[in-house]
């Protein structure tokens, strides 16, 4: 089982590594970090804050967009190009194929987030700012955010076209980022807004958990620039992401199991 999943993951990595858009995204992230330096210089004694904020936002934005891009295309193109015929006709379970595809994406996205983080660390070092444990925790959380978004994209891709999967994934990611606002809508909104907000809260992962900086956690305002969350929080948030990843992949496997490849 492990060998088959790994074979698919390795092949997915090979496939993704050939997508030139990814190299464009890496260049873009380096560019964002350079922009952070320029913006930092324009600020008054806030160079480090600006560099950290823009760097983390860049990893979150471009990492999640890459996850959606890979998730909606990699599974769909297997069916569309019929490359899947020569694969699932071999003694591999369909769920192993879906999980293998996801793990292949995990490898690609982990390398990307790693490169983004290295680029950010290099920029911060150039500015004479140290790398704190708060920053490491923030990067771990962003990494889990990206992996959760990848699972969302794989889930939609198991039964829908890339265009629709992309829209659904973006919507779910966007809603997941603003869960505190959805909670506020439940408290203060009109009755029908409350109903919609309650439903939204139930069907989207709480992606906001992965970017707590600037928000109140356990009664205290946390920030990567000062007091930040504990490793315990990072663990719990990661478990929340892991739960969604497992659930979404299980659903994707069930849907994929029922498909005909005509």
């Amino acid at each position, binding site marked *: 089982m492990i060998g088959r999943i790994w074979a698919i993951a390795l092949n997915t990595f090979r496939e993704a590594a050939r997508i030139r858009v990814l190299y464009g995204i890496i260049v873009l992230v380096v560019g964002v970090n350079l922009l952070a330096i320029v913006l930092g210089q324009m600020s008054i004694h806030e160079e480090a804050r600006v560099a950290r904020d823009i760097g983390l936002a860049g990893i979150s934005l471009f990492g999640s967009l890459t996850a959606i891009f890979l998730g909606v295309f990699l599974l769909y193109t297997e069916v569309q190009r019929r*490359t899947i*015929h*020569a694969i699932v006709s071999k*003694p*591999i379970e369909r769920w192993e194929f879906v999980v293998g595809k996801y793990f292949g994406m995990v490898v690609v996205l982990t390398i990307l987030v790693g490169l983004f983080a290295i680029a950010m660390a290099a920029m911060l070092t150039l500015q004479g700012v140290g790398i704190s444990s708060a920053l490491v925790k923030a990067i771990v959380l962003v990494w889990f955010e990206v992996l959760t978004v990848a699972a969302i994209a794989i889930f939609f891709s198991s039964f829908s076209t890339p265009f629709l999967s992309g829209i659904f994934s973006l919507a779910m990611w966007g809603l997941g980022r603003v869960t505190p606002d959805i909670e506020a809508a439940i408290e203060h909104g009109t009755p029908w807004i409350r109903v919609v907000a309650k439903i939204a809260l139930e069907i989207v992962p709480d992606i906001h958990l992965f970017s707590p900086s600037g928000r109140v956690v356990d009664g205290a305002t946390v920030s990567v620039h000062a007091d930040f969350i504990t490793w315990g929080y990072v663990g719990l948030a990661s478990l929340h992401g892991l739960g969604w990843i497992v659930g979404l992949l299980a659903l994707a496997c069930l849907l994929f199991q029922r498909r005909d490849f005509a």
Partner: protein
Amino acid sequence: MPSDIVIDVRDLRKTYRTPFRRKKVEALRGITFGVERGHIFGFVGPNGAGKTTTIRTLMGLIRPTSGSATILGHAIPSRAARFKVGFLPESPYFYDYLTIGELLDLAGRLFGIDRATRKQRADALIDRVGLGRARGQSLKKFSKGMLQRAGLAQALMNDPEIVVLDEPTSGLDPIGRKEVRDLIIELRDQGKTVLFSSHILTDIEAIADQVAIVARGALQSLGTPAELVKRTVLGIDIVVRLAAEIDATTLTTDASHVRRTADELALTLAADADVDAWLERARQAGARVLAIEPRHETLEDLFLRRVGSADA
């Protein structure tokens, strides 16, 4: 069914619904057949007959609406049923960024074959299908014929007991088709069972031990070529040498398939025609007999008859 049936298909049905109007389309309408161990089983039918749907159902790509099938005693679409089977899909598409060696390595990994055996088998198969010179090229640079060969190689990577080939000679030139036919015979000689589909009747007639003709999702005929094709004489083909200036009207009156060239006349007389009397008339007209041959029913005749009656 006898115990040496390795592929047993019973009343297999597949019904699709069209995307918007939800109209029912019956792709398979109760197909039943068995493939004996060590035989070459030819699956023949026009485009859209249900050949590929049957094969894809056997390989677990499509779920049947009803009916059942087993491969080596294992119900489809279980993993066990696919374990001893090699499969070449129709117009195969592979990851075009891989080389032939990497494609075979991936196939080997999915069968759980160890690294050393994968390498050894891949090298042997690449040479066997004649792709030794293309070893370093990515599949993107392969011609259709080369991709077909690559597909055959990946189908044999697990040293299968059963080989299922969907249109294996499609896209190949005459030499390539002959090589594939030879390979199929070689596989049978090694004790493997081969199920292959084709709409090229000469390929089927040349090598199949058993033939199934399908049309409109249903089996029209099943048996050995000798059982299916009648040995009765359908007509007499005659070729004579005859000078161009001689009027041949009296010779062609009761004939069919008449062809006249500068110095030859070819035609077919009915099976019950008086050939002696015709030959006498031909000699009197100055013709010299070049060939006389009885015309038997061919698989093509049977195919056209069966498919025609299914369409009616």
